[in-house]
């Protein structure tokens, strides 16, 4: 293992607020760790718990979900649905043996590039502190690509 | 009383109609008639008042002006005792109510609680007697006991301010008006319900007290009130005791009896004016009451 563990984090970002907020971090030339891989979804309410579970199954060290602030959803109420799902999913992850601290929900608006930077930085640090994890149903995925291929 | 409050087996014995009662210093001395009439009314209405064991000064009117800690710690001690007893704490004095309720409000803040030390985490609700009776208005049989009596309900400052501890609207409170209407009296709409009576200045600046109280009484007289009803011993002292010295350069003489709301409630419940100590006031209310056939 490397001197410092580099976690792999999947980020699901809503198109209208948080993805734009991440763009804003870029256009403002802010800087955050490279660990996050951003997947764009139209609305945070589009995020099926299955996607999160899948990411953890594949071996993700952390999953970040970001959407519009409550009340600001482009689709009026998608983020409220997400918030409920999040509240249910988190204890379920715990049950699966995945540290709840590896899963975070944040509200980032399109103008909050700085906030996005802070969120990613602190979350990456948090996951780094927790350390690597063992993928569900087998050894850590990174060390065993064959298994992933077989999937 | 003390033993009752301390006996744990008694804690749940009283039910919803049992309250810890905090009389305060004024009701034990200059405002005895308020204490007596309040107890008579409550007994008649099935409200059990258990005098708080070993109660001490609430801190009015100087503690909060001199020490932040004492302002919470003094009433805090009584709150603590009330919490031990386990019943909501009721007081008839507006000043005691204000100090106790503010202390309860502020100790919700952990930092203040640490400062004040002695206050327990679970604080029983603090209520003014008006609130207790108001919450039982439905069970109070409406009667025509005081029919024809025009009452100017005076709330003063401490029952309705500050907002966090107020029992009613600060500008146009209605809780006492509702009670008066229920017992057949006619509460007069007037503009001085919550004006300053001069509060704690009667010794230092009696001139200010007289000027302010005079305005209140003139306004009550102008709307044709037969008497002013109060729920605070300080208001009563200023409006009643100082009336003789009013007038002169402040305008016309004014004679308006000032009584406690519990005394009017007591009359409607059938107690005699003498049981209610209506003869203890400086401005005799008995002529006004007897002219309406009430005494």
């Amino acid at each position: 293992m490397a001197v410092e563990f580099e976690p792999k984090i999947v980020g699901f970002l809503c198109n209208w607020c948080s993805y734009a907020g991440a763009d804003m971090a870029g256009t403002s030339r802010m800087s955050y760790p490279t660990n996050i891989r951003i997947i764009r979804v139209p609305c945070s309410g589009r995020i099926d718990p299955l996607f999160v579970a899948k990411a953890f199954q594949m071996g993700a060290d952390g999953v970040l979900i970001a959407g519009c602030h409550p009340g600001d959803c482009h689709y009026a109420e998608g983020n409220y649905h997400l918030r409920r799902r999040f509240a249910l999913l988190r204890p379920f992850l715990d049950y699966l043996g995945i540290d709840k601290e590896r899963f975070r929900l944040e509200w980032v608006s399109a103008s909050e590039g700085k906030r996005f930077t802070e969120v990613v930085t602190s979350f990456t640090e948090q996951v780094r502190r927790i350390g690597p994890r063992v993928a569900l149903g087998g050894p850590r995925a990174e060390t065993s690509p064959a298994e992933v291929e077989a999937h | 009383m003390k033993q009752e409050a301390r006996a744990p087996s008694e804690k749940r014995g009283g039910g919803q109609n049992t309250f810890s009662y905090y009389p305060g210093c004024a009701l034990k001395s200059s405002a005895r008639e308020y204490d007596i009439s309040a107890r008579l009314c409550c007994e008649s209405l099935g409200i059990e008042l258990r005098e708080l064991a070993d109660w001490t000064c609430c801190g009015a009117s100087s503690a909060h002006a001199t020490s932040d800690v004492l302002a919470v710690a003094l009433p805090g001690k009584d709150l603590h005792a009330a919490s031990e007893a386990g019943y909501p704490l009721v007081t008839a004095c507006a000043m005691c109510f204000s100090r106790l309720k503010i202390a309860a409000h502020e100790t919700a803040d952990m930092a203040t609680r640490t400062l004040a030390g002695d206050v327990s985490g679970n604080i029983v609700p603090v209520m003014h007697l008006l609130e207790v009776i108001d919450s039982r208005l439905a069970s109070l049989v409406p009667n025509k006991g005081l029919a024809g009596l025009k009452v100017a309900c005076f709330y003063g400052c401490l029952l309705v301010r500050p907002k966090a501890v107020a029992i009613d609207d600060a500008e146009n409170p209605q809780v006492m008006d509702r009670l008066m209407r229920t017992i057949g009296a006619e509460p007069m709409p007037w503009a001085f319900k919550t004006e300053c009576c001069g509060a704690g200045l009667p010794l230092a600046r009696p001139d200010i007290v007289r000027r302010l109280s005079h305005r209140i009484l003139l306004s009550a007289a102008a709307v044709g009130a037969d008497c002013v009803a109060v729920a605070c011993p300080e208001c009563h002292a200023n409006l009643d005791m100082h009336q003789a010295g009013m007038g002169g350069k402040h305008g016309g003489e004014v004679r308006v009896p000032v009584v406690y709301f519990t005394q009017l409630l007591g009359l409607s419940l059938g107690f005699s004016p003498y049981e209610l100590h209506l003869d203890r006031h400086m401005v005799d209310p008995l002529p006004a009451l007897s002219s309406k056939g009430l005494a």
Partner: protein
Amino acid sequence: MFVCHCGTNIAGVVDIARVVEAAKRMPQVVYVSDNKYTCSDPGQGSIKNAIGEHKLDRVVVSACSPRMHEKTFRKAVAQAGLNPYMLEIANIREHDSWVHAFDKEGATAKAIELVRLAVAKVSRDAQLHARQIGLTKRALVIGGGIAGIQAALDIANSGHEVVVVEREATIGGRMAQVDKTFPTLDCSACILSPKMVELSSHPRVTLLTYAEVVSVKGFLGNFEVEIRQKARKVDHASCTGCGTCWQKCPEKVKSDFDLGLGERTAIYIPFPQAVPPKPVIDLESCRYMKYLAFTASGAEGKKPPQCRICEKLCPTGSIDWEQKDKILTEKFGAIVVATGFKTFDHSAYGEYGAGAYPDVITGLQLERMMSASGPTGGEVRRPSDGAHPKTVVFVSCVGSRDEAKGRAYCSKVCCMYIAKHAIMLKEHDPEVQSFVFYIDIRAGGKGYEEFVRRAQEEYGAIYLRGRVSKIYQEGRKLKVLGEDSLIGRPVEIDADLVVLATGIEPSTGVVDLAQRLSISYDTDRFLVEAHPKLRPVETQTDGVFLAGVCIGPKDIPETVAQGSAAAAKVAALFSQEYITTDPMTATVDLMKCTGCMLCAQVCPFKAIGSQTMRDGKVLANVNESLCKGCGLCAAACRGKAIDLRGFTNQQLLAEVTSLWQ
């Protein structure tokens, strides 16, 4: 696969050559090239050429954010003959090179993974086709105030039919109640009445007064609206508006239009210039209606008189007691909401008498008194004794800028109408002295600040910065206690009349209407625009537009401008022959759907309905015209029977999986 350098924006951090090499080894990738600027003409040309040359059926562009150039590249691939939705963008600029400038190694590794992610998605892209639907070129305007009048006239003048629905018996709204307008002191009626008449006589305008919107179905271009025409008990087709009935009707009630200061009869027109100039019968106060109600209830006692005087006197026999509420169903392509406002009820202010003092009135009431056609014939009189007031106190911000009363916002027009009133009072009666208590004077607008200064300097209004703490009756006078905070002294004024500048709040019933239209409202019940800066008269519901004070407090010029703006939006919409819909909508797999309809419950746009299959099963059905593609339903569906085109479950799962390949 096209990797963009974006000059040095990307190439300065990310090792493009390594990304290209890695991409070449990715499954299904047959062609990789890099460009200096892919978005440039040559860059786009190279994409088009490659599509033809290498028979590409899907394209990934690794460049800037898709929010930047997705549309550009979609167009480019479409020009090369591909379906425009067979394109994905890997964001290696905003999400990579720009934020990882100090970690070139990490940025390059991340770029490769982002490319792989996009490849995973693009290989599961399906051909999507935008649909075209027809539209009804007919607009509904809800509210007949100045905003609605302006919107309706502009739409009608651009050649389209308009229906105006107004709840009251006349159009004109609040502006009709106003005597003069600031800062020019134009007579309000003189500038409004011609517009009202123009609207009522316009060949393309249908006016439905005394009517309300009951329900709204459908979507952009194809709304179906139910409108209740309330029973007027007067046949407007034959009524000539001669006025005999309302002159002779014996039943008098307080006039809403005159804000309780004057009286009207049970059969009435709200004011002399009302449009239409034909009466309605107020069912609650009409004597015959009371008689009928009494008879029907079977109660004992003396019967009310039968009256029916209007019926006896009507020369055209237009009184129709049998007339009932009627529901009209109409089709529209667009809806403009212009529901306006009402004034704050000052009974919440106990310190100002809670509405108990007759000589404490509102600004709008003073406006009615000043109006020559108002209840006092244009004379300002104290409601208590009819005397002409000499000392008048104005209190600003009553129900505005007062969080304790739940009204944190500024009502915007009060400062100006106070100044107007102070000027007009002095013009009515030179002996009047006005005092104005204010918090701040907000006079932003052309000629506004100058107007306020005129009130002070030429008309002698005394402005006192501070709030009024109490008003009470003392004899015939009103004692006003306040503070002049600039000199830090309490002020007492013995006033004859106190005018409260009551704030603006949305009209009654606006929340119900907003829910019927699926548009949002804020905590103060003002309707919410699609974007406060750039889409000020649009809503989140396509085809529904807003105008005027229903969005937030504003003055007449701004309201008129918004009416025209909403009309322009409608006209632009109606300039199309059909509407193109976004194909990234939800779709139901009928083989999997169990008809639980959970999707319909979560859908914020009511886009999911049900359909009955031949075997009697009731399954979900997406109305693609209403669907906005949020995907809430797809995430909610238990059986994964509903999916979102462009962001399918399969695609998103593949994206996740790709990160470990």
